[in-house]
């Protein structure tokens, strides 16, 4: 331990140096182990992060009593824009949507899974937001809004979303991405969210 016998161990430089190196190494290895496990659990198509083709189905967000948290529920077949996609087509569409959200920097106004900026609503469950009215009009309203939101104001502050030059194709892809995003199991975040009525 201490190089010098007169020195108290807890005041010794070498003692703390060794402790630091060992602790860092152990913590790092534990993190690597947890990361490997997490990687296996968050593959697309698994339980936590569903396959892209989930957009062919109705998505809901319901209380799971055993977990004491709301969880996404993939329900009956209900294809997006009325067109059922193969796994590859769904992936391509969702991917295009995600690329668009990077390219327009949506995350520097909105939060996504709660991360990002705090100027505009969280988009984690935007697909399920009751403000869209009803299941019948939602898809087209979302596309229209994302393409040109400037004259569609929904709050008394006058805070508007700008026109970001999102094309029609991109807007459809973004909606697919948002729908897919709502299927991710986020351990109950957001809590107490009341989804849009999709029964009729």
């Amino acid at each position, binding site marked *: 331990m201490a190089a010098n016998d007169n020195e108290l161990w807890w005041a010794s*430089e070498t003692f703390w140096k060794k402790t630091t190196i060992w602790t*860092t190494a152990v913590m790092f290895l534990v993190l690597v182990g947890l990361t490997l496990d997490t990687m296996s659990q968050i593959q697309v198509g698994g339980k936590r992060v569903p396959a892209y083709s989930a957009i062919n189905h109705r998505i809901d967000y319901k209380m799971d009593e055993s977990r004491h948290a709301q969880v996404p529920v993939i329900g009956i077949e209900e294809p997006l824009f009325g067109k059922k996609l193969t796994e590859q087509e769904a992936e391509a569409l969702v991917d295009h949507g*995600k690329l668009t959200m990077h390219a327009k920097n949506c995350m520097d106004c909105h939060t996504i899974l709660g991360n*990002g900026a705090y100027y505009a609503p969280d988009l984690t469950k935007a697909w399920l937001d009751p*403000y869209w009215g009803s299941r019948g009009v939602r898809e087209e309203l979302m596309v229209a809004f994302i393409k040109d939101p400037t004259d569609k104001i929904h709050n008394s502050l*006058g805070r508007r979303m700008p026109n970001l030059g999102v094309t029609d194709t991109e807007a459809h892809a973004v909606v697919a991405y948002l729908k897919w995003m709502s299927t991710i199991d*986020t351990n109950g975040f957001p809590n107490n969210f009341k989804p849009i009525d999709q029964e009729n």
Partner: protein
Amino acid sequence: MTALRALDSANLNGGQKLAVKYFTVALALLGVQITFGLLAAVQFVMPDFLFGVVDFSIKRMVHINAMIVWMVFGFIGSVYWMLEEEAGAPTVGLKLGNIIFYVFTAAVLVVVAVYLLVQTGPGEIETQWFITEGREYTEAPRWADIGIVVCLLTFFYNVAATFSKGKVTGIGGVLLLDLVALAGIYTLGMFYTTNLTMDQYWWWWVIHMWVEATWEVMVGCMMAYGLMKVLGTSRKIVTTWLYLEVFMMFGSGILGIGHHYFWIGTPQYWLSIGGFFSALEPLPLVAMVVHAVYDAGVHKSRNNNHPAMGWLIAHAFGNFFGAGVFGFIHTLPQINLYTHGTQWSASHGHFAFYGAYATIIIAFFYIALQKWRGDVWMSGNLFGGWKWKWSMVLLNVGMLGMIMGMLVAGFAQSQIERAIGGATWTAFFAAQEHPWFVQGMHWRLAFGTMFAAGYALLVWDLLTIGKRETRPVQSHDDAALEAK
């Protein structure tokens, strides 16, 4: 009439000449950060302000990217500042270091110009390579990522080569390992995937591991050096403390990353692991306060550079309160469920980045200026000493006011939008429209203006401090004697 003291680079060693270049750009970019922060804050109060011209997202992106870059410049500058003294050898690769400095600065200008003039691109991968990556903090396009890593590696080479020519002190050893980790971690965020959960998992490795691990260790090294310089604390004491701090920092902070893995699709065990280890993260920050205050006490606060000492103490407390206390209050999952992604995060983010990092870099500006002016007196009755004091008051009070404004807004938001409203679109605006929230945003703007005034005074002070001083720097022995 005595001649004015000039800023003379003959007073500096090779590494220090390069350091002051980095410091100059850092200070200028802090100005850019503040400008865009104010513009963004105005838009919370006047939504049509610059709407469709420079949208909120663009202002915010410039605001936080300017911050990352000025702090990285501040760190690089600080390392070059200490390097020769620590290693006991002249800096290796200064020519390369200078080239990298100009390339880095030019690249930053290009990135910002593209942000402001091009702003967004089509939804294709090329946009991420040349315009923006569109991920918070790491918005810089991919080419710039690669550039940053190259710059950091060249910098690392210079530092490592200098230490290996001279001697590797305890501080030096910690610094070297830290720089490797810093550059390595950054590369983990440099990929694209459709899988959002995977994307955010690795993105947090970059963000969290930078600010709560490698940057904290960096400032631990800077503090160790600063206390030796300013107070005359012994090397053995600062080195032992440094190890202790790094031990606690990595011991808690590495698994503490789990506090970002509660709600992004990652497994449930992160709730316990992240909650537990991140709750320990304030411990090293307590240790740092104890260390700084104890050392200052031992030396009866007598020191040869009052502004630097003031900012070092501000750093110790700012780090503890901003990162430690304000981090702790929302780090348990039971609370974070309601505060995640609200003004709480913004309040903590400002307090932590300012308290932990802005402060200590400013302390280094003062340490540098003292020597640059030819080891000038910076103790009591400093000529024009009101300037550093008032700028410090305006900056600290301005920041605290902004933080409180955001925290109050955050309280309202977590209750109204989250707990009651369940985070829907309507609930979001129910909170944003609430008078408590609106008032918070006004306070942020008012105190932000005060902060900006403090910055202006800081710049003025840095340009002039010591100019009309005739006394040379006070020696540690004299300072100690005076204390008796």
